[in-house]
């Protein structure tokens, strides 16, 4: 589904991604872990097409298309969803209207007719139940005055609405208490099918108790320095990132 080949990116002349290689197949969950500043969120942003980052090298193939040629909205319609680490507020725009506008675009892209108001409300109700979103939230403006937990739940709700092929969860666990974390993780798990995939970016092992990955990649200094199964997270939990850092630094020197 997704192939990242030697991807390099910079911001303001500073290189952040220094050659990322990663392959993701349908049905897989990949976790990306790493210390602060290793480039985790940059990778998420570059995949979603945020133009404050310059891609300086490499290729990304998504469902056979050259992803880097597409505009952010085209990537979204093709099936890439980014659950933001810090979802922004859009005052005055209700979640219902926002999602309806977004879903219309996705449907048009897929050659489908936009849903009628009735169909849409029914669809939204189903998805809301699936991710256990509060009934109150849909009438409110997008993220306006939401608590940290509500914002993250809203991200998962939007993900349910748009049914992406590839979901990228950027530190979705940050700022969540354990109950909110469970709700969010539950939602993500329910949305998992054999045809879609996700990239779970996290700093802590905690989230991976609830969303069990097939692979874990350790990102350090703009490169994936180690890949393993879910046991890698436990290893990290014990020894921290220091050992990996040392090992990676040694490798880079040689």
């Amino acid at each position, binding site marked *: 589904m997704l192939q990242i080949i030697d991807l390099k990116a910079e911001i303001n002349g500073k290189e952040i991604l220094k050659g990322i290689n990663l392959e993701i197949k349908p049905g897989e969950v990949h976790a990306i872990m790493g210390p602060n500043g290793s480039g985790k969120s940059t990778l998420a942003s570059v995949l979603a097409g945020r133009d404050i980052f310059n891609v300086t090298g490499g290729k990304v193939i998504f469902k056979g298309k050259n992803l880097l040629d597409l505009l*952010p909205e085209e990537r979204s319609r093709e099936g890439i*969803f980014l659950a933001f680490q810090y979802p922004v507020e859009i005052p005055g725009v209700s979640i219902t209207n*926002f999602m309806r506008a977004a879903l219309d675009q996705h449907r048009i892209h897929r050659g489908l007719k936009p849903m009628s108001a009735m169909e849409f409300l029914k669809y939204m109700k189903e998805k809301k139940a699936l991710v256990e979103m509060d009934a109150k939230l849909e009438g409110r403006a997008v993220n306006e005055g939401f608590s940290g937990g509500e914002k993250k739940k809203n991200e998962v709700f939007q993900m349910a609405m748009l049914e992406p092929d590839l979901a990228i969860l950027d530190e979705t666990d940050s700022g969540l208490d354990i109950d909110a974390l469970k709700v969010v993780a539950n939602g993500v798990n329910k949305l998992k099918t054999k045809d879609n995939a996700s990239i779970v970016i996290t700093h802590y092992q905690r989230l991976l108790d609830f969303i069990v990955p097939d692979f874990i990649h350790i990102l350090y200094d703009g490169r994936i320095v180690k890949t393993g199964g879910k046991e890698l997270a436990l290893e990290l939990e014990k020894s921290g990132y220091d050992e990996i850092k040392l090992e990676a630094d040694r490798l880079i020197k040689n």
Partner: protein
Amino acid sequence: MGKDDKIIKEIQEKKYEAGFTTDIEMDVFPIGLNEDVIRAISKKKEEPEFMLEFRLKAFEYWKTQKEPEWALLNYEKPNFQDISYFASPKNTPKYNSLDEVDPEIIDTFNKLGIPLNEQKALSGVAVDVVMDSVSVHTTFQKTLGDLGIIFCSISEAIREHPDLIKKYLATVVPSRDNFYSALNSAVFTDGSFAYIPKGVRCPMELSTYFRINQANTGQFERTLVIADEGSYVSYLEGCTAPQRDENQLHAAVVELIAMKNAEIKYSTVQNWYPGNKEGLGGIYNFVTKRGICKGDNSKISWTQVETGSAVTWKYPSTILKGNHSSSEFYSVAVTNNHQQADTGTKMVHVGRNTKSTIISKGISLGKSNNTYRGLVDIKKSASNARNYSQCDSLLIGSECGAHTFPYIDVDNSTAIVEHEATTSKIAEDQIFYCNQRGLDTENAVSLIVNGFAKEVLSKLPMEFATEAKKLLSLTLEGSVG
């Protein structure tokens, strides 16, 4: 940011959609202004003697006045001797049905999407269309007439209801109120008149569409709405104008009078030609709009969506004279390219327990300047008066400006006055957030702007709200249609 800049630029370069002119024979007075022209206007309108006197007095006063300069506006002053003060489609008979109206006129309205047709009539809107200076068609006269409601052109009202005119005209906006009200009083050629009798709830929205059609023709509309005791009326005013290179002056006067327990809702959607992207052409909109809550418990609400005009100078105001009277002002003003708007409201509290609310949303794009200027004036007699004002500005791009000048005069210590103001920009991360959900930037900007203006748009009558949203999107979007 590069892409956003491009889209913002496209939006700025969007052409005025209603830019076409209608080829209808016009009956135009020679240009220039003097006593003879005023006499001719009055004669042409078959006015009673007192109106001519009223006009001439106003003209005498106007000649002693200078154009005001205090607004934050920069424009070439109109040459008042270079304007024709009367234009009407030639040979204007009284039409009995739409079929008799010049198809060209109907075509113009259709191009604008003005629903002057039976569907509209069936949906319950009586339309008094003003094309240049003469009312062309009035619907629903009879239904309204059965309720005792008078809704007609002001010229007709002057002829048919001189007592009401004598009693109320220029009582809210005196001829001597300001430079433009004096000019308007001297030369106004048409406009609308509505009178709602005691205890009557007007069953439909009264609606007027203005359209400036003749090059070099000043438009001096006069509107007078009177809601007698315990009555209710919702009045809609909407306008677009064809593209012109010369600046066109529009100096209307609107007066609203709400008696005891009466309510007037006055809604405006204004989309006059704003000039091209270099700022050439476009309408000068210098309007005096004022209402008086004359009786106890009366209410006046102003709702306006302003997207047009090169220069706007406009402050719909309310004098809260009756005890427990209230007034609201909801405004969205969008300026683009070189447009300038100096707009806001005045709330003058005279009666006890009077209440006013001001919600103003300014949106600036391109090189435009958007100014909110408001006055909350609590007089000594206005015990327990209450005002809440909120002025929000949204900037799109980096070359536009937003300014806020709130004046507050409080002469009674029991008053409570609140003022809140914010200025924001559409943030790059908001646009990216929308992009990531599949919305293109143009869509995103439109959505964000509509969200910003929602509080005001929701105050418009249903059908007008749809029109206003469409207008906002048209003003913002790069694509045509």
